[in-house]
């Protein structure tokens, strides 16, 4: 299990500092490294468009 950021992402960057394992990288849309993700949902809590979801 890991969170995945959908194409609803507006690339605002709000999620990136929240991740406790530095699993999120910047891009046209932000991307979560599934190997680093610990499923905590911290990114989803602060996302303004609900883009990260458990996959």
């Amino acid at each position, binding site marked *: 299990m890991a969170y995945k950021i959908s194409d*609803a992402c*507006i*690339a*605002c*960057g*709000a999620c*990136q*500092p*929240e991740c*406790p*394992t*530095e699993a*999120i990288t*910047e891009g046209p849309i932000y991307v979560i490294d599934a190997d680093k993700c*610990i499923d*905590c*949902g911290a990114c*989803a*809590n*602060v*996302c*303004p*468009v*609900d883009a990260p979801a458990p996959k």
Partner: protein
Amino acid sequence: MSEQIEERLEDLQLCGLQIYTRGKASAYTTDAVLLADFAQLRHQERICDLGTGSGILPLLLYGRENAIQVTGIELQEDLLILARQSIAHNGLEGYIRVIQGDVRDVRTLLPQKAFSLVISNPPYFRDPAGDPSRHQSQCSFHDIALAAAWLLNNGGRLCVCCPAEQVLQMAEVLQERRLAVKRLRFVASFADRAPYLCLVEARLGAKEGLAVLPQLHLYDGPGRLSQAARTIYHMEQEWGETR
């Protein structure tokens, strides 16, 4: 780990204050901004920040009230260096100081009853091998409560945050150290969501009596920061419009 990553300054959009950080991500999390807003500040307050990291809470508190004295404790040397750089860059040596040390050794670091406010954005994730700023490998809620009970004068306040589902555990740990929970504010992403975070204020030696504040939600709708969140972020315009 982070030695090769270049330092940069990030603008706090608050009274011209800037903070040093490393890497591309922001120097601080939403928690820190919400907690700095939640704390009620008095004139000439003596404040201790447990696990100050790169010094975000002292800077945000100074942005709200200039007549304060903040002492930050931080275990990790690389963060301490960043914090000192930020203090010097903003010219705040007379208001904020940071010392290296373990929150668990607070009795050897700072005098008893010397503070009217203790603030902490404690690590609350649970990976023992994870970054100690974020994971409870070096510092637990119990350690925060113990340190606050030592540092606070009678009636002094502790402001902390924790995941919403851990708030009872936090209250219990605080109660054991005579820190009575007096004010709570739950935070959710959207108005119709369950809260994910809780902001907690406890007072040393206080009687029971709890104020639960209206829930804060960060967003009104997709991409739209709520008015309450905009006020906390000191923003005038809608967030989505400028990005």
